[in-house]
């Protein structure tokens, strides 16, 4: 029941997104622009710039993700469909889960397109273990989206939600940013220290579990009328 409702909601979100392609195209264009801005700020021809690639990956994910997260609940306000969701015979947690899944899918699509784009533009030679790299990106995104979806729901209650969300989301997601950037950096730049990348990934996983469970439980308090 919980998953059925969540999947229905996620499907609804992704289907409307498929029809309009509004949010995802904005996120992709924004991600591309961030890459271009960075290529002006840090000369891509300089070999030392390779060291900041892991940071760039996460800056793109965070900023592009923020655009999508901002939309995910405010879009429900236009026709007051958020109230329809509240009165629907759904567990509040499955609303969270549904929104979480749709946000996760959208950000993952943006990552799949923009990270190779970044590697190409910065002429970065990828030598890391692809499977672990994808896993790192995935668990980092998982944590960011689980905190982000929750806080987007929280800030959507405010009239200035677009301004409130980054302010409340960035401090909460600092462990993700630190851990994910470190794990990515070790894998891409110094693969010989792979063991410490694993321990960073464990930290991210711990964060994911704690924050996801806490958000999952507390969500019903955010969504009360």
């Amino acid at each position, binding site marked *: 029941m919980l998953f059925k409702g969540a999947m229905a909601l996620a499907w609804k979100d992704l289907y409307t997104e498929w029809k309009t392609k509004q949010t995802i195209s904005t996120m992709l264009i924004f991600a591309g622009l961030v890459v271009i801005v960075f290529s002006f700020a840090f000369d891509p021809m300089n070999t030392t710039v390779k060291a900041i690639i892991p940071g760039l990956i996460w800056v793109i994910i965070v900023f592009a993700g923020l655009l999508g997260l901002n939309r995910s609940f405010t879009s429900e306000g236009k026709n007051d469909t958020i109230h329809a969701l509240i009165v629907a015979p759904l567990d509040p947690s499955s609303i969270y889960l549904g929104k979480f899944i749709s946000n996760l899918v959208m950000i993952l699509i943006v990552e799949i397109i923009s990270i190779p784009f970044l590697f190409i533009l910065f002429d970065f030679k990828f030598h890391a273990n692809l499977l672990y790299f994808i896993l790192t990106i995935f668990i980092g995104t998982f944590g960011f989206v689980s905190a982000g979806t929750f806080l987007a729901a929280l800030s959507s*209650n405010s009239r200035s939600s677009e301004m409130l969300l980054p*302010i409340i989301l960035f*401090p909460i997601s600092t*462990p993700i940013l630190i851990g994910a950037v*470190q794990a990515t950096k070790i894998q891409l730049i110094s693969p010989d220290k792979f063991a410490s990348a694993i321990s960073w990934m464990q930290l991210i996983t711990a964060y994911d579990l*704690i924050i996801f469970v806490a958000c999952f439980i*507390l969500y019903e308090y*955010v969504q009360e009328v």
Partner: protein
Amino acid sequence: MKKYQDIELDYAKGVQPVSTIHKLLTYTTAILFIVLVYMAFIYSPVEKTMGPVQKIFYAHVPSAWIAGVAFLGVFILSIAFLITRKRIYDLYAGISAEIGVVFTTIVLTTGPIWGRSSWNSWWSWEPRLTTTLILWFIYLAYVMIRHMDSPWDKRARLAAVFGIIGFLDVPIVFFAIRWWNTKMHPIVFGEGKDQSGGGLEPEMLATLFVGLGAFTLLYIVLLQKGVMIEKAKIAVQAYKEKLQDKLVR
């Protein structure tokens, strides 16, 4: 859904008199602070390597302690609010967060002053410093949520939820930063053999404890004062609305 319970205001009584306990606490705090100033500047010895700058320790550590207490208070009061839905808990949580932000600001300003002379740099991206900075941002965010334009019950509920999430986040932030960077703070209350973590002169330790006591009392006084002011604000607002109602009719 649970019913919200607003605070009870007795308009007939007018402004509520300040309780004797509050007055007593205020005077005790004032005296304790004078004692603290005496102990910090005259009684306790000057530190050998750092010199008089080390005196900032007696304000820095208690402020950090109060910041911690205040944020733990926000966490507990937030849970209490979500369970009971009594507005009084929300008022206390809000004031506690504001006090916490003020004392974290004190920590973040006294820290660099001290650090400049003992580490020779204003700031270092060291676990405790960075965690304190992130903590400061988390509770600024909390205060911003409290200033949202919504009815009080909604605002209180959302703030309580954020207060819980924010507090759960702090230990993870600390561990993440600790792994990211090594430590620079000495462990004052000796860890390991022969108190190699640092250790303090007995006079210094006594001063520190007076400082902790004084700041803890200050926290309680400020908490009570803040809640009194909040209650007065609510009463004035209610009175205004009543008056407007009357004038319209």
